[in-house]
Every structure is written in C-alpha cells, then in structure tokens.
C-alpha cells in the first residue's frame, strides 16, 4: 500500500476552535464598539449614532459586494482586474440615470449652473439595479473578450485603462453624466419625510444591503462549491492543464469575469441609492480598486467569507479613522480621560472573559494560543487609548512591558511561525502606540488627525505582515472534502 504523504505546515486547527474567525470578528466588533463610544463621548443622540453606524454597515456592504465580485474573478479564477472602479462607476451611473427623475440643465443668464444629465427615466429601483448589472457585466465581457486570449498582464492593463478612461469621460461628457457636479437627488428606496428621514433611510439601506449581501453569499457559495466553481479553480491553478483535460477555459474565464463585473455594477447601484448623489471624483478613483484588492487579500482570496470580512475590516478602519478625527475636530480633548477609562474597562473585561473561558471553563485553547489572545487583546486595547494620548505614559509603559513579557514567554515556549507573527504584530501595534504618545506630547491636537492620515500606512504594514506570515489571508480557502 502507498503510505499517506506526510503533512507539512499547519493543517487543521487543533481542537476545532476557529481562532482566526474569532480574532477577525472581534476586530470588527472592536471597530463598531470604539465607533459607538467615540460617538457617545462626542454627545451624539442614539438615533445619530445608529445613523452613523448604518452608514458604516451599508458602505461596508457595498465594498463587500465589490470584493465578492473581485474574488470571483481573481480569488477563484485567477483573473486580475485592475479596473474595479470602472465597473463600479458604470453600475452607479446606469442605475442613477435609470431611476432618477429628469434633470434638465440649469442656466442662469449665460452661465450653465448645471449641465443636466441623460435621461432621468424614473424607473423602479429593481429595474435600475438589473440594468446596472447588465451594463457592467457586459462591459466586463467586452473588455475581457480580446484581453483574455492574451497573457494575463494584458487583462490588468486593459481594465485599468477602462477605469481611468471612464472616470475622465464621466467628468467631461457633461450632457450625459452631469460632468463634475454629477447626478444629484438619486431617489432613496423609500422616501421618508421629517426629522427622522436620514435615520430611517440609513436603516432601510442596511436592510436592503444586508438582504442583498446575504443572498449573494448564499448564491456565490453554492456556485463556487459546484462543478462549475471547481472548473474556475482549476483554471486558476493551471489553465493549460485544464484545457488539456477537456475544458473550454476561455468560456469559463469569460463567464467568471462578466459575472464579477456584474457584481461590481450591483455595488455601484447600491452606492448610488445609499449616497443619493454621484460625482466622478473620489468615489471612482483608482484608490477604490486598491482598497478592494486589500480587502480580498486580507480577508483571504478564494473564500467568499474572507472577501466580506475583509471589506468590513478594512472599510471599518477607514470609517473609524474619520470618527476619531472628527472628535478631535470638535474639541473633545477634555473627554479623553473618560474615553480611556472606557477602553481600559473593555480591555479588562475582554481579558477576564478569556481567562474565565480558559481557566474556569473547559480549556478551548492550548496554552500558547491563550497567551497570544491575551497579548493581542492587551495590545489592541492598550494601543487604542495610547493612540489617543489618553493614558498616562506610565500606564502605557506598564502595558508595554506586560505585552513583551507575554511575547517573550510565547517565543521561548514555541518557536512556531504563527506565534512569532503574533508577537511581531503586537509589538508593531505597540510601537505605533508609542509613536502616538510621543507625538501627543509634542503636538497635542495632531494625534487624532495623524491617525486619519497614517491609516493607509497602518493598512500597508498590516498587509506586509500578512504577506510574510499568512499569504493566504486571514481566513484561508477551505479544503473541499468530497464524499
């Protein structure tokens, strides 16, 4: 008999505890909690907080849909799309033109105040969304048709060119797209009146978006587990071999690319109704494409859950940085102490929860993982107030020493890659915290602002660590065991 090949590397999570899921969902939970706390301190009303949170969730859902589309193209099929923003733009403008009411040009004297835009067909939302999907999917197919026959790089170049061209065209084709002003007053799904309108609208969008996202996850999961999805993964692994096994790989690539484009169009349509207006500038800049890449890479490509988690995480950091900046802007420095107390309470609470689970209940984690988790929690909750300059420097130093103590123990106990990755991540987090403290001493009001400005650096550092220690993303692609 042939002996089983020896397994290398971490195979299955021992004990079945989904550590990565736990960490990733606590991070997203942490983002939401910190966002709520900072809003409370800023004196927001409950409805205001919920509106704000609703905005986070609905935009994160839009990014999730984009990430799911990109994951279908790249994660499953290996087709690199460098023009996500372009398909997103097509979806948004097609939907907006379809569902808004007519907008004639506004001319005051000789000055064109608003050039107007094409159509204004007042179609129902569902029709607008379907048109957006068809248009973006069709555009994806048209771009892919010549490029897919060439080497992989050409697809990236062609899509990037499409995205950049489209952004310039929308800015300049004034009579069709409204030019730089864009399309205003895209009707929300349900028109609310009165003071609660924005709150009710946010809740509606979360509801609609949540439904769409849930349906998409179910359908995409079904598709990727099917024989069809299997062929896509085969194309990604080795296109030539798949062709030699009798599959028309070109047709599969085209299908995956067009469907992914259609999903991006769907995201565009959701964006148009969530925001209520469109303009070609920042919303469809190449940076959108890069964000979606990061989301899929961080979440774990080839895994629908990973794409959606990555979107909530990365957009969450973006959203949180704005939250923190806005509090600094509204001059809430006096409340830093209250905030830090809340953070410490949360940190201690989380620590106690872990300790309780670990030592009182059944041991779900082995010792190394327990320490790592404790260190990560301390790091996260210690660094956050440190970043805000709230804790006295001595407190931060104590936490710092504690963290490194844990790190040292872990490093001595097990020299595994993952353990060391955890240590370095925690140490990096703390290093950033220290930088903030120093900065806060030098320029008290610059701290919150700098979090906003260096958020991309933080995401970049996260990416580098991830690529070194976990190239497959936080949630790896699952092995499919066929029965």
């Amino acid at each position, binding site marked *: 008999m042939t002996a089983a090949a*020896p397994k290398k590397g971490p195979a299955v999570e021992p004990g079945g505890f989904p550590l990565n899921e736990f960490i990733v969902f606590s991070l997203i939970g942490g983002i939401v909690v910190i966002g709520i706390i900072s809003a409370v301190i800023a004196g927001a009303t409950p409805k205001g907080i919920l509106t704000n949170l609703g905005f986070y969730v609905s935009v994160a859902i839009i990014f999730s849909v984009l990430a799911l589309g990109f994951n279908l193209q790249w994660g499953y099929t290996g087709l690199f799309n460098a023009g996500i923003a372009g398909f997103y733009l097509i979806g948004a403008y097609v939907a907006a033109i379809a569902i808004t009411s007519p907008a004639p040009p506004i001319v005051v004297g000789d000055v064109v105040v608003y050039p107007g835009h094409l159509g204004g067909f007042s179609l129902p939302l569902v029709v607008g969304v379907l048109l957006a999907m068809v248009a973006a999917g069709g555009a994806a197919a048209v771009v892919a048709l010549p490029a897919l026959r060439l080497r992989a790089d050409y697809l990236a170049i062609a899509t990037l060119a499409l995205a950049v061209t489209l952004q310039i065209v929308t800015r300049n084709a004034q009579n069709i797209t409204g030019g730089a002003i864009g399309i205003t007053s895209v009707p929300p799904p349900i028109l609310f009146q009165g003071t609660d309108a924005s709150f009710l609208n946010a809740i509606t969008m979360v509801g609609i978006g949540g439904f769409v996202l849930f349906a998409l996850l179910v359908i995409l999961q079904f598709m990727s587990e*099917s024989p069809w999805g*299997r062929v896509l993964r085969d194309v990604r692994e080795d296109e*030539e071999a798949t062709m030699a096994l009798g*599959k028309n790989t070109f047709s599969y690539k085209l299908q995956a690319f067009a469907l992914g484009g259609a999903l991006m169009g769907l995201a565009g349509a959701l964006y148009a109704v969530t925001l209520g207006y469109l303009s070609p500038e920042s919303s469809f800049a190449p940076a959108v494409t890069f964000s979606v890449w990061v989301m899929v890479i961080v979440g774990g490509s080839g895994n629908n859950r990973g794409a959606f988690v990555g979107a909530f995480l990365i957009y969450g950091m973006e959203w949180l940085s704005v939250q923190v900046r806005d509090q600094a802007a509204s001059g809430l420095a006096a409340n830093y102490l209250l905030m830090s107390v809340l953070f410490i309470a949360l940190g201690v609470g989380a620590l106690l929860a872990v300790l309780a689970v670990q030592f009182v209940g059944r041991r779900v984690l082995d010792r190394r993982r327990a320490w790592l988790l404790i260190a990560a929690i301390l790091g996260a909750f210690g660094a956050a107030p440190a970043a805000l300059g709230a804790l006295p420097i001595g407190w931060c130093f104590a936490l710092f020493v504690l963290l490194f103590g844990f790190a040292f123990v872990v490093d001595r106990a097990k020299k595994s890659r993952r353990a060391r990755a955890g240590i370095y991540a925690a140490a990096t987090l703390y290093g950033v915290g220290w930088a903030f403290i120093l900065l806060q001493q030098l320029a008290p009001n610059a701290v919150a602002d700098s979090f906003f400005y260096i958020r991309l650096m933080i995401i970049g550092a996260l990416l580098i660590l991830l690529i070194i220690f976990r190239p497959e993303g936080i949630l790896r692609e699952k092995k499919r065991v*066929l029965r």
Partner: protein
Amino acid sequence: MATSPLLTVNAVEKAFGGIRAVDRCSLDVAPKSITGLIGPNGAGKSTLFNIIAGLYRPDGGEIWFNGTQIDGLPPYDIVGLGLTKTWQIPHELRNLTVLENVVLAAKGNSGEHLLNLFFRPRAVKQDEKQWRLRAREILKLTQLDNLANEHARTLSGGQKKLLELSRALMSDPTLVLLDEPVAGVNPALTGSLMDLIERLRREGRTFFLIEHDMNVVMNRCDRVIVMHQGRKLAEGPPATVKTDPTVIESYLGG
C-alpha cells in the same frame, strides 16, 4: 495492415524560432495497441504529443484521429473526440484534492454549465454523484484511493504521475498519449501500472507512450517508433528496433 490506423500524423512540422523541433514527421498508431515512442532528448517527442493534443498549433501537416482531422482544433474539442494526454512534468492542480483533480476530468458533467446549476439542480447532483463514484473506482485502480482527500500538492513525484494517469482515464478516452508515465515510479508500481495499461488495452483503449525505461518499452509495447531530430527514424516490433544499427547509434548506444 488490415485495420486502418487510429491516429495518423502526416508530415507535421513545428519550429520554435530557428529550431525545427518536429520536421515533417509522419507516423501511425494502430487501434488497440500499445505503441512506444522513443528517441534521444530533444528529438521532438513531447512537442509532437503537444501538437497532437492541440496544445501547439502545427506549422504544417495533417493529423487524423478516428476519421476526423484534428490539427488546429482546440485541446478541449480533441479531448471530446476521445484523445487525452498526460504531462511529462505532472500538471496536478496543487490546491485541489486528488479526488477533485480526477472528478474534473470527467466529460460532460452537467454541473459544469452555469445555467444547469439553477435550472436542473437534480440532474447536476445526480451527475456529480456518479462521477465521484467513477473517480473513486479509478483511484482504486491507480492505488491512490487512500489519498483521495489530500491536496494534490502533497503527493510525491511518482504519485503525481499516477494522478496524471487517473485523470486521463476519467475522460474515458479511446487513445491516451502518455508522456513518460513511469518516470519516477518505483519498480513494483511500474509493473502494476503497466499491467493496468495492458488490461485497459484489452478493454479496447489505445496507448501511445513516450518512455525512456527500456524494460517497459521492450517488454510491453507492440510497436516502437523511434524519433530523431524531429523525424521518424525507425519503426517496428521492439525486437527489430532494438537491433537496428541507426537506432543503436542515435539512441540506445552500443
């Protein structure tokens, strides 16, 4: 010859830059035979296989398989006609399991069409179930059944060769082109692998194989074709070829 050949290669040419890898090569493969293809390194054997399988487009010449002209057809159409090839360097799909690798090679799995997934879910399920059973049978034949749910990347070199063969069999081919099927496979397994190939031949399949293992070529092949510098140098039963002075000079060595 009484029966007409299953595969006819007629004056096929292929050049890469200035190198004529295959130079007006002509040969026939008889149905239900095990035909060997030998020759020195760089003689154009693997290139010829790639041309026959449709992976390279020939610069000239014709290829006929089972009454159909196949040169210029895309590889998936050629597989559809019943001609499959395996790779000299295994092209296993690394991040899929062994079983997935094999199931993939099934022809006409209805679940591989997107619309069927949504409009004929029952047929898709039924189909997939049958193909998985078939794949498991094949894995038993090639002795990989205990590795069915391991990632293909964890297999050893010899096991990857067996996986290549399993995938080829899954498409239920009339003619299988085997590019060095036993290179890197241990002697005991080589024996049982060649027994398997002989058994499949008795069931009506044809094998055309490149191999450097002279034991396999001399003892198991009905006919041997020798290629040298892109052309057919000699052809005949193993015993005749073995004593052919030109073959000894260019390939076998004195």
